[in-house]
């Protein structure tokens, strides 16, 4: 029993390391970055992390299954601009417009799923292709212009909050994250995702319907990106075709910092959320300190590579 407890503790310690890094960063920025530890800034930080966090949730499933979804950033923009167009130009009721935008996300996800799971095109290429295609669709639909003058209800929803510090869109992300966590860690679908990611052939021989599951994973990533687009619309209070530009990379980085492996079979939702927070806190804290965005990118790049390097060292020790 002794060794068993030790192993369980070790496992927990590994997942706690990233959390520890986050707490440390929060402490350091609270001291050295003026205005970091204020209700206003934390509120803003949570709003900022919500979109990437939701994308990271979907991306976790994809990465655990040994795939990658590069189209999520584009889908955010597509969903954001489309709902804005539907509301302002076609006078579709807000809720219906958002539902349609989410369905559009599902459509992108379904296409990814067909390309990857059914036609067997490598996920990197398939989703790179849909990324370009739907970026074009988003830009063409609005001629590249932002869409303002959205109804007041959107702004009102965006301003809703819990106890004055948890924004409404963060609550939505959290709800989906909890559901996704249960799905990944407790259900059979979750187990199959790990099985496919760690050895697809063995998974197939074990009776798992690999194609169906992979299709569902990409579909889910698409739906969550559609929802993230709706959250983006609320946050920006305007429709922007390129609202999610580069977000796919942030989401992937968040999953990987949180313990996900691009070799498949590893990763968790809480880890991905902590990873997303680390990225967001870093850029927010640096911004408050007056560090230019150029330097921010440099530091985020270093943090990402270091995180994966440390993880690799840990894993080699395990062998």
């Amino acid at each position: 029993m002794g060794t068993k407890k030790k192993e369980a503790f070790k496992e927990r310690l590994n997942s706690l390391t990233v959390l520890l890094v986050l707490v440390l960063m929060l402490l350091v920025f609270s001291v050295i970055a003026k205005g970091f530890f204020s209700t206003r800034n934390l509120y803003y930080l949570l709003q900022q992390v919500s979109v990437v966090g939701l994308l990271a949730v979907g991306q976790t499933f994809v990465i655990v299954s040994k795939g990658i979804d590069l189209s999520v950033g584009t889908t955010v923009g597509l969903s954001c601009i489309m709902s804005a167009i539907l509301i302002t130009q076609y006078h579709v009721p807000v809720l219906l417009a958002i539902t349609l935008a989410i369905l559009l996300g599902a459509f992108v996800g379904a296409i990814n799923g067909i390309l990857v799971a059914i036609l067997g095109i490598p996920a990197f290429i398939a989703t790179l292709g849909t990324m370009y295609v739907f970026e074009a669709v988003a830009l063409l639909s609005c001629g590249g212009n932002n869409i303002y003058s959205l109804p007041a209800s959107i702004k009102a929803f965006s301003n809703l909050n819990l106890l004055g510090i948890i924004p409404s869109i963060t609550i939505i992300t959290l709800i989906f994250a909890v559901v996704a966590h249960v799905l990944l860690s407790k259900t059979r679908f979750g187990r199959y995702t790990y099985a496919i990611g760690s050895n697809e052939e063995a998974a197939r021989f074990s009776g798992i319907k690999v194609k169906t599951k992979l299709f569902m994973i990409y579909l889910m990533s698409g739906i969550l990106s559609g929802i993230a687009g709706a959250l983006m619309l609320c946050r920006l209070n305007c429709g922007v075709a390129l609202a999610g530009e580069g977000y796919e990379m942030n989401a992937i980085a968040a999953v990987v910092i949180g313990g996900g492996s691009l070799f498949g079979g590893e990763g968790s939702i809480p880890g991905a959320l902590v990873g997303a927070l680390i990225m967001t806190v870093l850029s927010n804290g640096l911004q408050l300190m007056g560090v230019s965005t150029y330097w921010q990118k440099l530091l985020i790049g270093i943090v990402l590579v270091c995180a994966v390097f440390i993880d690799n060292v840990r894993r080699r020790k395990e062998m």
Partner: protein
Amino acid sequence: MIEFKHITKTFFSNKALDDVSFKAYSGEILALLGQNGAGKSTLMKILSGVYKKDEGQIFIEGREAELGSAEESRKNGIGIVFQELSNVPHLTVAENIVLANEPLKGAFVDKKKQLEVAAEMLARMGIDDIAPDRKLLGMSVSQQQICEIAKCISQNPQIVIFDEPTTSLTTKEKEKLFEIMRKMKQDGLTIIFITHYLEDAIMMADRCVVMKDGKVAFHGMMEGLTENQLVGFMIGEKASDFYPAYQNYTTEETALELKGFGGGVVSPLDLTVRYGEVVGLSGLIGAGRTELAHLIIGEDKAKCGHIFVNGKEVYIRNENDALRHGIGYINEDRRTGGLNLTMSLQFNLSIPSLVAGRKEVIKKGMADDRGISRMAEEMIGKLGVKCSSPKQKLMNLSGGNQQKISIGKWIASGARILIFDEPTKGIDVLAKAKVYEVIRELAKQGCAVLVISSYNPELKGVCDRIEVMAKGRITGSYGRETIEEELMLAQQR
């Protein structure tokens, strides 16, 4: 000459190597024997710079050598011919031989020199039927292996290690390899020969080292030793009772019936397996036995015929259908098609059960970790799996223990028709005995078992009936009392 002095290597308080000391001299072939998990691979990984030793020293030609990386190992004159070939099929023989060590002319590869080097190496081995400018693609395993050896000796090693070199060779190809090994020995190289085939070791080696549980169990001249003695050193106990005591459990009830069933290389054939019966499928490599199994479980599409399970015709389009009809397939290649090596034991054991919807592992529609843990502990006990906990990652287990998990996951799924494909390939003697015991136990519990094996004694040891396949057809059906010659003749038909 290479000398190991008190080498120790520990993984997780588990001594993989425990005070290992021995010498191998120039101009001799030293056989390194032992079961899987005895420490041979660990020792070789230390030599090739993959692992670092915890304690001890290695002397090469009298000088102490630090082998921290593959590069250092190569510089110290160590060459390894791996079991799994590491050639690049799209390059030519010559390109493969000089790979990562290309002769240069300015900044470019000197193509002429490259061909010369390759031709010289092949000539040194006495090979004249391989053209250096041919692409490797499409060459036989034996020819590819020769290229690998040529690459190895092109770097002028003093010590060459052959790791299970004969596994995928025919008898004739094996002779060729042995000829090359003898020639290298005459050239004064130190040769370490790792093999599971005792007959080969006795024929080729001057001296032998037998390892057991990370220690050197025997170290001495090969001359005069018998296979039985060697097995004795390897397991430290008598090799008797290898096959379980036989009792016929066959019932009248038909489990699996194929009628005019075929596709691909498998010609339409009939086959019946009853509950409680163990049926062997004997044959040479390429006879179509694995292909038949793949047709049954829906991995490949059958062209014609019918499958009946429990007397009812069924349609199996994929492994999921097979599982739902109670058919489990223990994959020949457990590493690629059988197991999730980076995941835990209990994860692996639970997957088919989860797919089959067994209530032991599911609670309120969710995967029940307690139930899975309980099931895993039970299966680990039943199969005698050596591990530190059900949560241990599978890749840290020996081949034999991995195979037990590969079998256990199907037993746990409740499948009543089990197809074993080469179940004892690459596992040690004790694990083999356990696999045989498990197969008979399954029959006793009323399961229908089909065993594919290229090793006839083992089929005779565990089966009630043996069907021989050759060129996609069934060419004979024999009882367990049949003599091996009969089986071998049927394999040639």
